[in-house]
């Protein structure tokens, strides 16, 4: 049970698992699927420690790995969903439960609005807003040009604002 030399899998977990978990949960909306993808990723990293050799942007590399795994899973799940009617019951929000009722409503609506975005826009929004990456870092992580990352972000943000405008205005007035 000895880890390959040069790869500290526990350090990788401690430094990146939380942000990867949030990204994957935003994609899959299912905790079991998120766990499966994360486990698959860490098993792969443990089996092939050379994957990280020569990688300078470790975080970007892991995000790309997680993103690709999530897309594969979504394709597989697309087939499974057709046969699984009660799937909606399993969906969970990527946000922490809120105590304030207004906050809770806003978070629920935000989670729904994010779910309606195309996967590629959702990934950019998540990485920009909640992983606090720059467009250059997002571009490197998702293997797209920085301009594409920026335009996807703008489109996604416009959609979210339109979708959440009534709630947002109400909350602003209340403040």
């Amino acid at each position: 049970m000895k880890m390959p030399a040069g790869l500290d899998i526990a350090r990788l977990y401690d430094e990146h698992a939380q942000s990867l978990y949030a990204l994957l949960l935003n994609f899959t909306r299912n905790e079991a699927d998120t766990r499966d993808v994360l486990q698959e990723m860490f098993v792969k990293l443990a089996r092939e420690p050379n994957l990280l050799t020569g990688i300078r942007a470790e975080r970007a590399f892991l995000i790309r790995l997680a993103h690709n795994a999530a897309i594969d899973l979504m394709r597989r799940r697309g087939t499974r969903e057709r046969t699984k009617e009660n799937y909606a019951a399993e969906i969970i929000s990527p946000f922490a439960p809120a105590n304030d009722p207004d906050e809770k409503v806003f978070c629920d609506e935000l989670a729904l609005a994010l779910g309606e975005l195309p996967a590629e826009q959702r990934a950019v929004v998540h990485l920009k807003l909640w992983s606090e990456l720059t467009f250059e870092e997002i571009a490197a992580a998702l293997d797209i040009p920085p301009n594409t990352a920026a335009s996807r972000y703008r489109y996604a943000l416009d959609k979210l604002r339109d979708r959440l405008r009534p709630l947002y205005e109400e909350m602003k007035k209340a403040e």
Partner: protein
Amino acid sequence: MMNDETGQFEQRLSRRPLRQIPAGWRTELLTAAREASAPCPASPVGRHGWLTTFNRQLATIFWPHPTAWAGLAVVWGFILAMNVSLREPSPRLAEISAPPSPEMMVELRKQQLLLAELIGPREPCDAERSRNVAPRPRGVRAELVAV
């Protein structure tokens, strides 16, 4: 003004705290990763290194659709069996069939002679005839046609 509003909206979104990864996952995932990376214990099969490697290679190739590969193998087996069963009787038939009798040989010879008489000596066909004629200038050919 618009940028200000967008900035505020972005800030409001980014302030939403994300769900935390379940604490128990750390142990579970790291254990799974360590188990996956650990070398397999020595076994009697493990002694035959090349056999194990060959088995693993086969498993890697056949893993995605083992049923499909098995089906393909059955079909090939069936085709081979059919091929062998159809080919086998031909040499036996040749062995079993008796050589032609002298009377039959005489009759056959007569028929060949009759056929040769009916056909007559071989004459060159039209294509061969035209090939033997040397090409002439166009003017000469036109005169010949006119005549």
